């Protein structure tokens, strides 16, 4: 059984590794085709990652990516596609910024209030899609796309100077938040300031793992995702699970904008970072829905974002990093599929060989066989989650 585990681990690592290699190769082809050196950009980017200030920037950016990707991953576990993380986090950040500017409580109360407001706003926006799916059968993919656009309009309205907005030059903002609502930063001297929210992101990752893998709710969630009819047969209310998962996903999504808002800008403005929600889908896929995988994926993404800024000064274009991100996502989904299929075939061959050799399954080493069926079920589970 131990030997088998090793193979599974190898297969698990092979997917992303192959994908990365393919993506790097293809990016090199693009670089070659545009008449540039196919290797130097990587060297520059790796060199950048060695500097402490860039490392801090990467960690700060990764926090937002990580939280948003967790939100997407919660949905994935249920076979729900929350494309609306984009709208949810932006709306939540805007509402939080407004509350933070209008309400001034002492820090010990203000921060929890702001976090709660963000989570509730995100959950509310996602809940609309969840409710429509459960009661009216509207596909969450379409409704969340619509809700993204509606969120943009709502944000546009609320940031009007006659509503909650404050005009600052050319920029519409929501006004400076009271400093009791500023999340503490970790001052690292010359390297810059590490967002305190990075630690919240880590805590969220741990909570995500515990809830999904160590609670009954998490089991029900994964079971419903794997097979709705089977879960229903064992007494899970699938509709309620859909709604709960959507609310949970929205609540987490609501927090995704907070690292930037509470640690850095302290106001919501036109220049608030966008399209985090779409990026998060790629990151969640890359990390296969697991908390550790997503952490690596968001660090990789943040590395490509932040380390590529230097490329502009060295005669390359930063957009090469965006191409690489797109290629990585496509390569990853294809390689997971291919590796998964290959692993399944190997497993079938081995079982077939054992049968042919005259071992009656269940007679010789019952634990071995139960282990195998168990893992194959697990594999399918993962495969479902990865989609």
């Amino acid at each position, binding site marked *: 059984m131990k030997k088998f585990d090793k193979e599974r681990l190898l297969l698990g690592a092979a997917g992303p590794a192959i994908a990365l290699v393919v993506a790097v190769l293809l990016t090199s082809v*693009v670089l070659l085709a*545009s008449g540039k050196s196919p290797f130097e950009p990587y060297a520059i980017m790796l060199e950048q990652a060695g500097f402490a200030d860039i490392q801090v920037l990467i960690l700060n950016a990764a926090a937002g990516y990580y939280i948003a990707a967790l939100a997407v991953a919660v949905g994935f576990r249920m076979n729900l*596609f929350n*494309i609306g993380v984009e709208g949810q986090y932006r709306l939540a950040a805007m509402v939080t910024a407004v509350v933070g500017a209008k309400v001034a409580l002492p820090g010990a109360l203000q921060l929890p209030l702001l976090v709660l407001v963000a989570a509730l706003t995100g959950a509310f926006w996602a809940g609309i899609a969840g409710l*429509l799916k459960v009661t*009216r*059968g*509207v*596909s969450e*993919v*379409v*409704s969340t*796309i*619509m*809700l993204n*656009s*509606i969120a*943009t*309009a*709502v944000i*546009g*309205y609320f940031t*009007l100077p006659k509503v909650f907005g404050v005009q600052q030059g050319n920029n519409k903002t929501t006004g400076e938040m009271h400093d009791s609502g500023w999340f503490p930063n970790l001052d690292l001297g010359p390297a810059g300031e590490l967002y305190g929210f990075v630690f919240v992101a880590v805590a969220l990752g741990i909570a995500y793992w515990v809830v999904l893998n160590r609670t009954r709710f998490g089991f029900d969630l994964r079971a419903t995702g794997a097979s709705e009819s089977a879960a229903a047969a064992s007494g899970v209310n699938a509709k309620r699970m859909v709604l709960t998962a959507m609310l949970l996903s929205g609540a987490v999504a609501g927090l995704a904008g907070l690292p930037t808002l509470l640690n850095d800008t302290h106001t919501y403005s036109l220049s608030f970072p966008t399209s985090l929600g*779409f*990026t998060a*889908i*790629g990151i969640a*896929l890359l990390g296969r829905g697991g908390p550790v995988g997503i952490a690596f994926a968001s660090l990789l993404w943040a590395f490509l974002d932040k380390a590529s800024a230097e490329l502009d000064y060295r005669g390359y*274009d930063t*957009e*090469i990093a*965006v*191409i*690489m*991100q*797109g*290629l990585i*996502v*496509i390569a990853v*989904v*294809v390689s997971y*599929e*291919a590796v998964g299929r290959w692993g399944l075939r190997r497993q079938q061959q081995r079982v077939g060989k054992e049968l042919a050799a005259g071992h009656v399954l269940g007679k010789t080493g019952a634990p071995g066989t139960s282990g195998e069926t168990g893992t194959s079920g697990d594999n399918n589970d993962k495969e479902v989650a990865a*989609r």
Partner: protein
Amino acid sequence: MSTAPALDKRPAAASAPGRRRVTLPVLLLIIAGVLALTSLVRIVTGADGITNVSQMSTALKLAVPIGMAGLGGLWAERSGVINIGLEGMLILGTWFGAWAGYQWGPWIGVLAGIAGGALGGLLHAIVTVTFNVNHIVSGVAINILALGVTRYVSAFAFEGVPQGTSKQSPPVESLGQFSVPVLSDGLETINDKGWFLASDIAGLLGGLVTNMSPLTLLALALVPASWWILWRTSFGLRLRSCGENPTAAESLGVNVYKYKYLAVIISGGLAGLGGAFLSIVANPFYLEGQTGGRGYIGLAAMIFGNWMPGGLALGAGLFGYTDSLKLRGGTENVHALLLLIAILVLIGAIWLVLRKKYVGAVIAVAVSALVFAWYATTKEVPTQVVTATPYVVTLLVLSLSAQRLRMPRANGKPYRRG
């Protein structure tokens, strides 16, 4: 407008007893009724802009890219492949259209735009059909990739060229415009008179014959052409069978992979055409972020239209119209349309009473009263309301009719040759 009646029975029986099918005459009657109401509202409020010839012509221009994206979605989904990557294919269309257009003329640009979109479609087909990856995942990846690739290559293709920057292409020559000689002027005159109904219909038709680009005509023709190909030829029947029941199709000798590939490539080509329209006709250049999510809206228009070309065109028209309100003196016109909405919801309430659904009727009356109060107490409407309108309408339509919408049965399901 005909799906197999056998397939329609189930949802109809499930939702309510009796005669639910909307036939073509009924639909036309509804459209005529709405037009008459609009005309009434126009006369009462004096907001002549809502059925102006130029308003309609702008609306048409804005509806074309959305409609082409939606038509692309229709082709893909009828073959059973969900295409969220339409946005990316639209982006590829805008870039290739402008890139080839400024160098070799607009018509080559149109072809290049189609080819660029089709390239995106081919990638989507390889990933979803051959590798069986989840369709939405692949689509999202294509959107990211298309954005990155076009931004990257713009730096080489457009920077340093006269009037080009890394974010914008040099201008593309126009395809030319034409107005149908006598008809266009005549309709415009009638439209200007401000008569009840006649002027509004003249405005609507006038928009269709005034300052039209040949590409608009082509796009308009593609809607019935798609219907004819998909529902009246054996090629279309086979293609649709792949979206309904690929296993059965295969057992009858249809090469499912081939049809899916073709459908998705055509889908990309149509989206690419929509993109080329954006960067050649709507604006004479490529601009980063020009598509503005129209691919997603096209997808919504298709679902709004129940996976049928006619409904899709109606949806795209609605989106185009509200978009045009945003551009042309929107706040007053939308304010006038509030009255229309109030009346429409009231009619809906009466209909609900007739069907003995009193709770719904009470809610509808309340909504109608609220909208009317909004109309009566304000002079104009914030632009954001205008922006959000098409999305809210789509959500409403979906939530009211999602159970009656019927997507291709095997849509989005992985299929492996057995």
